[in-house]
């Protein structure tokens, strides 16, 4: 319990730091949101109008006042109004983007984790065998590939040339979101290539991580004892070894959420997938403060939440952490 409390204290502090950073970072960027709006009129404004727009879209008050206002907003979960899509509330766009990023990254992380972990278990169990000697290095090298190139090649080959998969978007334009199987099928169909492009470059890490932890465990006495007890291979492999090896994997999983959300950005760009990454790039280009802030905050929060969940999972899975 104490462990969890300490973690909670850390999360609160980290959250505060993130909130503060998120406020200041976009503000030290040159340019301000009104510039883009003014520019979008291509000179068709007279000066009075330019000034009026500056006054009403630009930022007002001292930095400190802005900061206080912003913290208040954050606490109320009010993220202001987007200037790229004026006057849409940031939260509605954010929610929309986050949903699709969650679909994309959620599926990708799950599969990468499952596939990589299973492969890692297999490789470690048959250490030195064909699978281990061939696939371990290959899978890990895939990890060092550029997501951009992988996404691009998939898009080019399967969407443009072979036309097996759609050109982009999260679902066909005619459909409206619902839980019916047709829509879900359509979403999965659209997500296939983007997911694949994240998957390809990420499962190798899980493979290697699991393999290495497993191998270290294989020589532990408790594993030898399990073997000596005549337990079945399956039981030793999963209950005795994988069960323990999964603990560090879960911690890395949580930390990788941030990396993956970031990495999805390129994929979303290539596949015109309406996720947060795309919105973020646009928001940055147009100095949409409220969106950048809200987006960074959301990312930080999701990483924090992921970490918190992994802490809890660790406590549940590792009895050694339960007390103290």
């Amino acid at each position, binding site marked *: 319990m104490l462990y969890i409390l300490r973690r909670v204290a*850390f999360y609160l502090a980290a959250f505060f730091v993130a909130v503060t950073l998120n406020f200041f970072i976009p503000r030290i960027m040159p340019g301000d949101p009104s510039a883009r709006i003014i520019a979008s009129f291509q000179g068709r404004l007279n000066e009075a109008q330019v000034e009026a727009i500056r006054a009403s879209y630009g930022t007002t008050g001292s930095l400190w006042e802005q900061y206080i206002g912003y913290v208040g907003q954050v606490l109320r979960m009010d993220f202001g109004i987007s200037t790229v899509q004026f006057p849409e509330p940031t939260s509605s766009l954010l929610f929309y983007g986050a949903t699709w990023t969650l679909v994309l990254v959620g599926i990708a992380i799950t599969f990468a984790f499952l596939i990589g972990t299973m492969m890692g278990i297999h490789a470690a169990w048959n250490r*030195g065998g064909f699978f281990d000697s061939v696939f371990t290095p290959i899978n890990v090298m895939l990890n*060092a590939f550029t997501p951009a*190139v992988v996404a691009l090649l998939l898009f080019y080959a399967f969407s443009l040339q072979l036309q097996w998969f759609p050109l982009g978007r999260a679902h066909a334009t005619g459909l409206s979101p619902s839980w019916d199987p047709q829509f879900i099928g359509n979403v999965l169909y659209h997500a296939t290539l983007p997911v694949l492009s994240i998957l390809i470059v990420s499962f190798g890490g899980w493979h290697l991580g699991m393999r290495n932890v497993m*191998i270290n465990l294989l020589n532990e006495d408790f594993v030898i004892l399990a*073997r000596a007890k005549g337990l079945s291979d399956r039981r030793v492999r999963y209950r005795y070894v994988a069960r323990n090896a999964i603990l560090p994997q879960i911690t890395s999983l949580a930390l990788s959420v941030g990396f993956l959300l*970031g990495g999805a950005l390129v994929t979303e*760009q290539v596949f015109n997938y309406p996720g947060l990454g795309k919105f973020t790039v646009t928001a940055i280009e147009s100095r949409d403060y409220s969106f950048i802030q809200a987006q960074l905050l959301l990312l*930080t929060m999701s990483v*924090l939440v992921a970490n918190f969940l992994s802490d809890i999972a660790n406590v549940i899975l590792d009895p050694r952490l339960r007390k103290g």
Partner: protein
Amino acid sequence: MRELRIKKKPGWTSRLSPSLAAFVTNPKGMSGVIILLAIILFSILAPMFSEYNPHRRAGKPHVAPSYEHVMGTTRMGKDVYTQVAYGGRISLGVGFGAGIAAAVIGLAIGISAGYFGGRVDDILTFFVNVVLVLPGLPLIIVIASLVDSAGPLVIGIVLALTGWGWPARTIRTQTLSLRTREFVLSAELMGEKKWRIIFKEIFPNMLSFFMSGLVLGTIAAILAEAALSFIGLGDPNAVTWGTMLYWAQNNMALQTGAWWEIWPPALAIMLTGAALVMINFAVDEITNPQLKAGRKIGLIRKFLKRRGRSADVF
């Protein structure tokens, strides 16, 4: 027992320090080093390989690979081969620069936190955790756009500043376990200065972790530079592997059939990544010999199988 193919250890390795000897006899590690060295040399010696200027047009647009343009030309008529060679300088420079810087910052923070403990540790660990928790790439994008145009240098600095979380964490854990080792206490009781203990007693034992952090950091930095340039947040004037991809993508190299504009930088990145991965494999195996899958184990399994037996345990 001939089937087990036991070779005598090459004699010359005995003159090297044991971990170095382990490295040079590790086939994965050495192939990584050789590939990497080849790429680095290729980049450094770029002017020797090509008379073209990577920033200037060298021929007609989209010339297919030919005698004059070994890897063809870009849509703008720049020589791809030359760009790959020169681009390597910056990509590798950013990668290694940021990788090394992040590893060094991580090392400094990790060691200090682990060695000094107490308040220092609490504070440093907090920052490490914050850096770990802050979303990486998006933050980099925001910071990179702070400056009007994110040249390779800026990208490198930003990557270094955001990339030290991981190494700091592993190194701190490692330091914590080293600090309880008696040779550290013994040096303290001997009256050694703190910095000397850190540099001479602790650091050398952390070399492999440092190396591994450096290698992984470098891969991450190279990939991040490529990704940032690819989505157009880099400086398109710079010639790096990432900007080459950016231009290839912008000029629809794939659609126009100019595969030679996109594959060379893509392969260069992949090859570098692969080489670094192999080096990291070797470093892992040296720190933890168990990880060495060892052809030996496979051979023993076969040996036993042929005799109708199976390996007893793993």
